[in-house]
């Protein structure tokens, strides 16, 4: 357990990438895996590592996120001493509340960083999903005497259209990073940053001051890449499962990957529970003629029809005669009698009326916007 680090989660605004899923919410607040929001994974990793001081940097559209995290109760972070800190942009009459980059965001929360009593800072994004603790990473950081340690995983597969904040690392045989590429046209390395960066708090403060004094706002390019020679930056190789929610396609694929037992076991490890907001839903109810295959179903669902290869969030209703295949249905979606849906993503509270058929492709799932009635 780590007791000398605090966490900062940046819920940046890559909202355009996920299209209508992020019309009124940040990526961090996008529903994932039947009962979670993306940020639950990073929050749980940190809490399971022993961190009790976590700051969440938000952009202007942070209402869903605030609603979801609340006082941090579910993560045991409702504390007077440390705990969960929502760090919204400093909105004044003159400032609309959007950051130009992570450095600016970090600069704006320098008060929070200064007040944090822990020695190390763990900086993380919110669009990368995995389940681990950072204990080994910190140990390696101390052992190697690194200034900065970046968590990475190996990914051979490359889809240019999913490329977003793609930081590639070149490492020497001892794990030290010798070079980096940001969103390279043709990646020169399979080692991709997992968007978790560890360093001493004082170094973080210095680097942020330094960069913002020079009008530099991008953490990857302006802070990490510029300092690759000057500072000892090491990679920490994470070998577990990693999903990145960069595009509607990767969002769809990452949810569907949960139907794989190995992925499920990695992400929902009993050792490292994933905490999320509790809704006090009733257990899911299967009707007398229901058919369910290869699906993930959350509490509060009522399944009277057929589902196959689906991820159903809390409180989804599948009426008799309705068929869902390869679909993701978010909280409170209603699929009425005799509908036939395939490769559809239903956002929260979508209603599909009696007998409608909708069908997308694996590579192009249909996305129904929050609250829409079809």
């Amino acid at each position, binding site marked *: 357990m780590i007791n000398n680090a605090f966490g900062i989660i940046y819920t940046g605004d890559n909202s355009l990438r996920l299209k209508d899923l992020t019309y009124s919410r940040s990526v961090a607040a996008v529903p994932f*895996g*039947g*009962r979670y929001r993306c940020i639950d994974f990073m929050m749980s990793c940190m809490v399971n590592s022993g961190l009790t001081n976590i700051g969440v940097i938000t952009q202007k559209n942070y209402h869903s996120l605030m609603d979801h995290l609340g006082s941090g*109760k579910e993560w045991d972070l409702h504390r007077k001493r440390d705990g969960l800190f929502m760090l919204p942009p400093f909105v004044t009459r003159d400032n609309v509340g959007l950051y130009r980059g992570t450095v600016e965001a970090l600069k704006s929360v320098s008060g929070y960083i200064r007040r944090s009593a822990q020695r190390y800072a763990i900086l993380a994004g919110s669009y990368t999903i995995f389940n681990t603790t950072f204990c080994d990473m910190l140990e390696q950081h101390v052992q190697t005497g690194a200034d900065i340690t970046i968590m990475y995983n190996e990914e051979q597969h490359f889809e240019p259209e999913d490329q977003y904040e793609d930081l590639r690392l070149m490492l020497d045989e001892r794990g030290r990073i010798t070079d980096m590429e940001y969103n390279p046209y043709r990646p020169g390395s399979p080692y991709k940053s997992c968007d978790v960066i560890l360093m001493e708090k004082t170094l973080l403060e210095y680097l942020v001051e330094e960069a913002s004094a020079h009008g530099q706002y991008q953490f990857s390019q302006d802070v990490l890449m510029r300092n690759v020679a000057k500072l000892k930056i090491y990679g920490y190789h994470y070998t577990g499962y990693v999903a990145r929610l960069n595009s509607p396609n990767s969002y769809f694929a990452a949810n569907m990957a949960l*139907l794989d037992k190995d992925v*499920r076991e990695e*992400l*929902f490890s009993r050792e490292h*529970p*994933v*905490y999320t907001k*509790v809704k*006090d839903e*009733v*257990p*899911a*109810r*299967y*009707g*007398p*003629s*229901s*058919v*369910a*295959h*290869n*699906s*993930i*179903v*959350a*509490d509060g669902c009522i399944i009277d029809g057929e589902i196959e290869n689906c*991820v*159903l*969030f809390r409180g989804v209703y599948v009426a008799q005669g309705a068929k869902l295949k390869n679909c993701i249905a978010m909280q409170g979606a209603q699929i009425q009698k005799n509908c036939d849906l395939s490769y559809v993503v239903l956002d929260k509270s979508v209603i599909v009326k009696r007998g409608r058929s909708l069908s997308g492709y694996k590579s192009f799932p249909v996305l129904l916007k929050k609250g829409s009635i079809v």
Partner: protein
Amino acid sequence: MRKKQIVAMLLAGGQGSRLGILTSNMAKPAVPFGGKYRIIDFPLSNCVNSDIDTVGVLTQYEPLELNAYIGNGQHWDLDRNNGGVYVLPPYVKGKGGQWYSGTSNAIFQNQMFVDQFSPKYVLILSGDHIYKMDYGRMLRHHIKNNAGCTIAVLEVPLEEAHRFGIMNCNDEQRIISFEEKPKEPKSSLASMGVYIFNWPLLKKYMQADEEDPASENDFGKNIIPSMLINGEKLYAYPFSGYWKDVGTIRSLWSANMDLLEDPPLLDLYDPTWHIYSRNPVLPPHYIASGAKVEQSLVTEGCEVYGSVYHSVLFAGAVVEEGAQVSDSVIMPGAHIQKGAKVNKAIIDERAIIGRNAVVGDDLNEGVKVDNSLTDDITLVGSDMSIPEFASLPKGMVATRETLGYLYMKGADVRD
């Protein structure tokens, strides 16, 4: 402490011997029910939903389990700045302390707790009933009647009336007489074990009752009758919804099955009447490709690869490929291995049913089963491990001991 209009006292009771091995390690109110609840979630949620935010839970049994389950009360919204939920075991005082000798003695011993909030009324509840009830309406009824005590009543079949406290009322619902478990019941109005008393009045009667060495210090047997004798105003409050005493194996099983009716006999979906519970931190459940699930409740952390018919699966239950579960209650963390068959059974927490074992099998010759507690329902105790190919006959209570008996019978255990 700020004054409260009403304080609830929940008699969580003792080990509940009629539930047999289900309560060998936990107090009755902590027994799982309905896929993700525990029995005590129902009275606690009723309190919160009725705007009663101060609850004392009186337990005879070791208080640790309940303390651990209830915690600071946040799961039921009972982590209040003033009030909230408190577990109250009998504590040692003066010269040694004593067990609660009866229901009213339990309240008597905790008078100081109630007095802290100087309430006008006190609500007495039992910890082994499943129902949804607005105690606020009952309180308004009590106040309107200017009653000293109001007892919630339910119409029961006349042939079952002998199991309950039975009331006779006049036309204004004022109680004329009250008999605890009468042999020849004169009416079918049964007490639900839910009372509202004027607190100062109750204190007076409890004090007098404590001074009577012959008394059993019981509400039904002593307090209520003596109030009636003294001409206090006692009223009945008729209740008509779903109500079930889950104090026996049979009733616990059938109350679970009631949830599978269409529509369910007890509506858990009412957004204005949430049933709160301590939620397990588990992922959504998974239904595999070859699985069949019909007319069942399945909750977080379950994995179903086999078939589940007309059953209730609790958090983290696993049904492997080829296994068949029907008309059963599978408690948290229980594991039904490949090819096993479970029929009309209650499988307690973390029990493992080995491959191809049969639970609830027809009775083989030469095997005697004590089914006095279970009827034809088979019960497998918590943390039990039923061996591969074992056959547990209908009505059996499988514990380490009884299983030993079957083993000694040799061939009867394995097909």
